[in-house]
């Protein structure tokens, strides 16, 4: 009875998957800037991974003093110049890049699962005790200004990269709870959720197999945009001295150290600042692209 023309095309799983990928790339690449973002992000990640091996002066990322070469302008020997105790800025940036990205990845690796799981649970079990507890705790965390909380945590604990990450994680998860809570509490009314409930699917199945996959688009977009934000906050914390401690380089403490020598020895501040920008900006561009990419799923 079904018209043969409708059924004619054979589609195996591999054919379909390739098709999906091609369409995804098309959607993504329609926005030129997001492709630029992707390329820069990949470059930055590559630099962070191989940075310590290609850094011209790897020793300069540790305790190192060489007053003879201090305050040198950018030159062939020191592309980005040297700082007030003679350390190569480029080498230090390459090392700092690594900890900046690591911070973004680790913070989100913890904050996202916690926020997403609690959000999906609270959203699906709306009206339950679990929802009330989760959402009120979330509200409390959201009510405290994020930066203040991070500063408080980082200053009570010993100032180092690990505690800075801990502080940022603690202030970050509630945003994911909020986001996913909103999505889940509207998706729970969809008929496909009803249908699963009526056949007897478990709450776990419904939350993680039916609802969660439909939340992925906004979550992925937020993760990409947040990578930039977390790195910014990380840099801010180390700028005020609550992140990585000297002599270990971080983009934030390089900027703040160099700031004392502005504007004469501008290279000490400008290059790390550009490095921060080079991380933050492409992640933002990439975020836009990822949003477009998932928008195709909405076409029905």
């Amino acid at each position, binding site marked *: 009875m079904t018209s043969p023309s409708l059924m004619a095309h054979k589609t195996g799983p591999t054919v379909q998957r390739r098709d999906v990928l091609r369409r995804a790339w098309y959607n993504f690449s329609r926005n030129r800037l997001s492709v630029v973002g992707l390329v820069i992000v990949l470059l930055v990640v590559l630099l962070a991974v191989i940075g310590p091996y290609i850094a011209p002066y790897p020793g300069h990322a540790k305790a190192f003093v060489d007053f003879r070469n201090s305050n040198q302008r950018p030159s062939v020997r020191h592309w980005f110049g040297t700082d007030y105790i003679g350390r190569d800025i480029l080498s230090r940036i390459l090392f700092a890049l690594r900890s900046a990205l690591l911070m973004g990845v680790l913070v989100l690796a913890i904050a996202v699962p916690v926020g997403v799981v609690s959000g999906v649970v609270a959203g699906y079990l709306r009206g339950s005790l679990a929802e009330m507890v989760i959402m009120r705790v979330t509200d409390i965390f959201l009510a405290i200004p994020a930066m203040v909380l991070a500063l408080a945590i980082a200053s009570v604990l010993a100032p180092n990269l690990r505690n800075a990450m801990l502080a940022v994680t603690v202030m970050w998860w509630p945003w994911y709870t909020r986001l996913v809570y909103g999505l889940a509490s509207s998706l729970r009314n969809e*008929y*496909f959720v009803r249908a699963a409930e*009526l*056949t*007897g699917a478990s709450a776990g199945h419904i939350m993680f197999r039916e609802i969660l*996959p439909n939340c992925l688009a906004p979550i992925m977009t937020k993760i990409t945009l947040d990578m930039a934000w977390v790195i910014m906050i990380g840099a801010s914390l180390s700028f005020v001295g609550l992140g990585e401690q000297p002599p270990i380089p971080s983009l934030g403490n390089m900027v703040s150290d160099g700031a004392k020598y502005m504007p004469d020895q501008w290279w000490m501040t400008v290059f790390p600042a550009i490095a921060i920008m080079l991380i933050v900006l492409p992640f933002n561009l990439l975020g836009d692209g990822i949003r477009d990419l998932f928008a195709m799923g909405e*076409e*029905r």
Partner: protein
Amino acid sequence: MNQPVLEVRELKKHFPIRKNVAVRAVDGVSFELREGEILGLVGESGSGKSTVAYTVVGMYRPTAGQVIFRGEDVSREAARRNLGQKGQMQIVFQDPGSSLNPRRTVRQILRLPLMIHGLAKTESEKEEKAVDLLRRVELPEEYLDKYPSGMGGGERQLVAIARALATSPSLIIFDEPTSALDVSVQAKVINRLVELHRRLNLSYLFITHDLSLMRNVSSRVAIMYLGVICEVAETKAFFTAPRHPYTHMLLSSIPVVSDLEEELKPRKVPSVGEIPSPVNIPRGCRFHPRCPEAVQQCREAEPQLRPVAGGTHLVACHRALPD
């Protein structure tokens, strides 16, 4: 001999909106559905027909009344019913665009009920049964790898029907299964439903607002108005000798193209007004403000369903004469 599959007794479902005010969506509905029957439950939007379906299947807890399924009282939400009862009663929703998860393939969608109900243990068994379900609704095997977005509306609805068949239910409730579909595929889906009904010895509760569809599909028709049933009859009697003025009004408003068809209508009653809000239900007979036959009695007393013409035909109207 014909034990009812489903018995609904004085079912009420009210949705409170503020203190002492409630939407009385279903307000005392009783009917039974016999083995192997297709009962059409027809009504305008707002008559409460979908609420009946949702309460029967367990999406809502009834405010009052009973739902008896194969002799077992299941007047509660699905979460409190046992697995067997959930499998035996299935529902197909109106819009397959929303009843199928856009992020799951047809394979995943069809396997879910099989797994929950322990109907297939091994991987190959699951695959086999999923293919078998697709075959029942006459969709090719290749559709297992499709996502709902890659199918047409009619095909999606067929997948939803295949999913409902997975647990081998004895009762399937259809909530306007074709009204979200393009006209061109409606007939195809309906034909498939009727075929399945015949082949698999199923009972259907068919919710729709399309009276002319019921003429060809159902064995009995029940008309709902503002949360109550006002007439129930065998399909033939329903279309040839309706008793309730509301039924007359609905039958007269079926659009036809020729005068010849127009002649076939039992009586012409112009449609007046619109269905009132179920928050403010008129006193007496619910239909009296729109009824051309209304008399004083209709404004005062609410008529009960009572048998006319030999007992299978039930009407709730003061003005319907028993003959």
